């Protein structure tokens, strides 16, 4: 039984770039998520403070975590695709 990927793809030169970018974005999101947990645990009353459109911090922070995940995801995909296309182009003439 071979243990290769489902469909063989060539060596991916962008993989180390993508990996570093992914870890960085993960750290950014992780800090924002950690902030949410810390406020809830250490200063829970802060979550009741009204901040925007009559909404309290709990709702605004919660929605922001959801939107931030979507926005970071789209940025990550854009940068990865750009890098992949860039490196694939460079590779083609060598073949």
């Amino acid at each position: 039984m071979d243990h290769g990927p489902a469909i063989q793809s060539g060596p991916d030169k962008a993989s180390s770039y993508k990996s570093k970018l992914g870890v960085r974005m993960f750290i950014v999101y992780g800090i924002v998520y950690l902030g949410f947990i810390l406020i809830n645990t250490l200063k829970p009353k802060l979550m009741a403070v009204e901040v925007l459109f009559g909404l309290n911090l709990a709702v605004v922070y919660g929605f922001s975590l959801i939107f931030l995940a979507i926005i970071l995801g789209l940025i990550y995909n854009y940068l990865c695709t750009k890098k992949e296309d860039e490196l694939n182009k460079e590779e083609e003439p060598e073949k």
Partner: protein
Amino acid sequence: MIYDPSVLPVIIFGIIVVAVLGISFYLGKRTSGAKGYFAAGGTIPWAVNGIAFAGDYLSAASFLGICGMIAFYGYDGFLYSIGYLAGWVVALFVIAEPLKRRGKFTFTDALDSQFNSKGIQLMAAISTLVVSIFYLIPQMVGAGVLVTPLLGVPHWIGVLGVGIIVIIIVATAGMKSTTYVQFIKGALLIFFSLIVVIMVLNKGFSKAPTEDFHEPISLSAVMSGGEVTDVYEAGYSVVGSLETAGHDFIKLSSDGIETWWLLDEGELKECLSKTTAEDGTILYNGADKEERKFFSVGSMVRIFADGQEVQEIRKLNVFSFLAVINDSVLLQFKNTTFTDGTDKVHIWYQQETPGSLMMRPGLKFKVDEDLGATGKTKFDFVSLMIALFFGTAALPHVLIRYYTVPSPKDARKSTILAICAIGFFYILTLYMGLGAAVNGVLDVESSNMAAPLLAKSIGLFLFAVISAVAFATVLGTVSGLIVAASGAVAHDLANFMGKEVSDERRVVLGKMSAVVVGVIAILLGILFKGMNVSFLVGWAFSIAASANFPAILMLLFWKKTTAKGIASSILMGMVSALTIILLSPSMFVRYGMDAAQAPFGIDNPGMISIPLSFITLIVVSLITQKDNATKMEHKD
């Protein structure tokens, strides 16, 4: 509570279930070989896979569990939405592509790609089985929840029905059919949930939310020497009283029917009660269930809009809806149990809750000292949020979806689409849950029914469609889980035993194990009736985050990781998480024991079991460094 089946929901429900089976059989005929069965031949387009991800994920836990928890505990239920979604960030940024580059069928393959270790194969297969079964329980409970109001049949018939249909789907088809089924249902669920939310916003708030809404009654008590001796209402007489949980409850008799009332500043407030007599007879509000004395709850007692108190307010937007709840006062029902002579009484009593408390954490997870928080309750909260964050990327049935698309790039794109779809849906859950909390639709006996019953209050057609779609989503999720679990048994354990097994034989093995796992799921689904499904899913996340996540992460990012390190960390994470869960207060209640006797006093093991798993991996890897001489280097 009693539910009457109607013809329309049954017809729509039937059509959707038949359509699901039809797709499965059709695609099943076109599936061949082990790769086709377990990973759809790696041929699914990324967009389809992305929505299928969402379909898998937005199952009973999200639609039923989260909405129900929000309806009963407000913002605390929404914490699950936030945690579940945040978990996808870990999956996308750290796990998706590297894992896709390493694996073939299962995440065991990926973990084992550099080692060919018997220990990893065995441990990863067992952990896949355990996590899948824990994830299956809430799905099955959810299935039972859905069919009760829809078809008017008991919970266990729903569980059994789902079990049998899913076993047929999985045994005849495989990953490709479950993917397409999930794709269709994921899309339908999001669409119809949006419709429900639009209707809820349009309807706004009213003190009498539905035509047949039963507004809980209050009676004035006649007090003498600090005791209630009578009531200012003809036909009622005081027949008993009891003090428990810091409250005085008075038993009144009227027309031979005995009901319980909460004494609150000289007023007697109507309660809901379920009395179980010694001979097993159960009375709902003092009468047989069929007499329908047990009413739906969930309403507003004071509505404030822009600082003015109003009787009702219509046509709200996404901001004003939440702002009005924040400023208003809701009527909720808290519960307690006691014995009255030889009768066991489960009582739900009125409690006015400021909307501002509903809109921030604290009603379920105690984080505020003023609301009864302790160090232990805060630890439990952090533990849950950490497990939700790291659990998603370690769920076997989520990981297996990375193998159904052609390339790592497609894995990434489908994950991002999934995040968009799931994130959008989770925002809807807040509106559906709060909508259910104030529209007089809640069944105090089951928080899981909140969303379907909200849809029912809007219209029978919407209720029928959304219940059928949710039910079908449960079918799809359960199918996906069973494929993952049977994949673990057939593929990983066969590898572990070192037998040369042909592809055809693997599929047969997979299908046989699918039947066994399905039967286990049916039994557990019946046993766990009544527990909030999202709470149960939280446990699956905890086990996955503890057993699988440290192994995956360290394999990808720490070169000194050894095979023995991975195997022992999976074992440590799984055993420690399971031990804490099985000895948790919630499980003690399930065993029929006192929750206070639970040795650890916490429900969520993540904060203990995840670090333990990491430490085990690091220590064992450092001790067994010489094993890495034979390790195969991974090339990207």
